[in-house]
């Protein structure tokens, strides 16, 4: 064990740091998917496309700003702007024009409607940004690297991935928890999640709540994408990969569980990056193995509540 650690300790340290940053990104996407599911009762297959479009938009805005001589710090504004833009431009029409028509329909139909949206958005993305890789790592370069002490060694790691990503994920989690528990709008959303009919009977405008929630969830996905954009170069297919991963996080946590999604994002993020360093051929499989293992023991997910039907 000690011998193994001497040989592989640094690699493990790097895997953990990577995993943390990765978990932060995955959490941002998964929590949006989960929030939308909680209120709309729809698993949005196109959620991953919103992530991808958010990423592309952020990179484009960042590159545009840099080309016009703005300092790299401005590209942080680009990250936020991209999220707001994508949420505001794509969220409302998708909810109003498409999803609203299938509320309460069969799950199969709802999944397929969002699958159709996914197909459309994937091509929109290809038409706008092409198939060549797009990259803007200015925000990450701007903050430089930090030497993380690890035993007797140090691991140089980007400050962006070490502080910004996990920091923003924790902020999002805390902010969301505060919003849902302490603000009126938040309480209303929770009420609709718990019992839509009762909430409507109490005079809550469920139509507005679903619109707001979906738009917010879309913005969260886009924000996740925007934050991811400096760490990687963007190619078609990002959306398809992201959605299955956030599915895995959400299912592992239990549908509709916000804090739970943070725990399972961490579990899956770390598991995946450990695989990346030690068994790369299993990188993609690990999240699903974690998910299947959890569901075998707890079919409703780690934090999910089993549903019982009244007879």
């Amino acid at each position, binding site marked *: 064990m000690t011998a193994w650690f001497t040989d592989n300790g640094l690699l493990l340290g790097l895997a953990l740091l990577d995993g943390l940053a990765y978990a932060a990104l995955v959490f941002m996407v998964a929590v949006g998917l989960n929030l939308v*599911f909680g209120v709309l009762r729809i*698993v949005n*297959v196109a959620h991953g496309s919103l992530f991808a479009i958010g990423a592309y938009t952020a990179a484009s805005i960042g590159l545009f700003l840099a080309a016009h001589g703005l300092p790299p710090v401005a590209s942080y504004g680009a990250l936020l702007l991209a999220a707001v833009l994508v949420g505001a431009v794509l969220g409302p029409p998708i909810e109003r024009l*498409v999803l609203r*028509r*299938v509320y309460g329909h*069969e*799950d*199969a*139909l709802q*999944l*397929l*409607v969002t*699958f*159709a*949206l*996914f*197909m*459309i958005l*994937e*091509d*929109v993305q*290809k*038409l706008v940004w092409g198939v060549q890789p797009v990259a803007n790592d200015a925000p990450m370069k701007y903050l430089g690297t930090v030497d993380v002490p690890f035993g007797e060694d140090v691991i140089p790691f980007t400050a962006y991935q070490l502080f910004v990503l996990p920091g923003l994920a924790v902020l999002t989690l805390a902010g969301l928890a505060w919003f849902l528990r302490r603000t009126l709008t938040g309480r209303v959303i929770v009420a609709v999640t718990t019992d839509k009919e009762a909430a409507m009977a109490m005079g809550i405008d469920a139509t507005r709540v679903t619109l707001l929630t979906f738009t917010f969830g879309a913005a969260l996905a886009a924000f996740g994408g925007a934050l991811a954009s400096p760490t990687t170069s963007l190619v078609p297919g990002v959306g*398809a990969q992201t959605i*299955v991963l956030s*599915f*895995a996080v959400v*299912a592992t946590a239990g*549908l509709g569980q916000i804090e739970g999604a943070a725990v399972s994002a961490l579990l899956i993020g770390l598991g995946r990056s450990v695989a990346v360093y030690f068994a*790369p*051929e*299993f*990188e*993609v*499989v690990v999240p*699903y*193995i974690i*998910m*299947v293992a959890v*569901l*075998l023991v707890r*079919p409703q997910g780690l934090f999910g509540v089993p549903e019982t*039907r009244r*007879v």
Partner: protein
Amino acid sequence: MNRPLEAGLAVLGAAALVLVAWAAPWLKFVLTLALAKGIAVLGILLLLRAGQVSFGHAMFLATGAYTVAFLAPEMPEALLLLPLGALFGTALGLVVGLFVARYRDIFFGMLNLALSMVLYSLLEKLYALTKGTDGIRVAGLTFAGAQPAREIQEWIMFALALGLALGFGLLVRAYLGSPMGQALAGIKTRETRLEFMGVPARRVLLFAYVLSACMGGTAGALVAMTSRHVTPQLAYWTSSGELVFIAILGGAGSALGPFLGAVAFELVRVYAAAQVADAWQMILGGVLLAVILFAPGGVWGILAARFKARA
């Protein structure tokens, strides 16, 4: 829908396909693939009857296809490879089914998706075995020991696909009308009652699942022998989404639906890809949305309504 009309349409449709394949030889390839996919979609249709949608059924198709690709160099006999593809699909269906039959609705869909992604990433990453994303070329085949000319081989594949499509269509039709098939539909509306009738609902679903996996394996073997090239993309979750898409496009009301849907889908794809190479997915997505929102019965539903209005 009444029996003679459905039978008449099936015979008419088969005749039309033969005629088209004869008149436009380059379409024979497209139609063979369409028929093969239709067989896989027939399996999706079974699960839809139970109100369940599998977003991972391409894993069985890929299993059948890779079975052929792996075994063809050692054992090129198509008439043996075909049942072997079906057999491996069935076996995987039994293993996966034992797990997923415990779940319903979104969890059912997501677990299927996750497990198919496990297969996908194994096919992609185990390069030594599968040649990764390059895929495997299927070696030359023999048919009952003979190696006919290419043109003849194409006709044989077409005939095999058509014959199997008709055979599985009849099988599914009889199954859906049987007590087991009707109980399957009961899972969708009142699973509790099944249990209180002494019927293990899980086993009813498992049977349908394994049958659908068998059809997926058969379809995969046909696809591999027709296209002569298999890639991990066959198992990707978007391929599964396509199968569900075809099921809805054709309509879940009849065993003819999957084949109507598959032919329509493949033709739209061929033309859309030729006309607007970058946007064919968008067009398909648009068609899917339109079908769900405006013609929920699919192509079959439209046809059936026509005939009903006339009768």
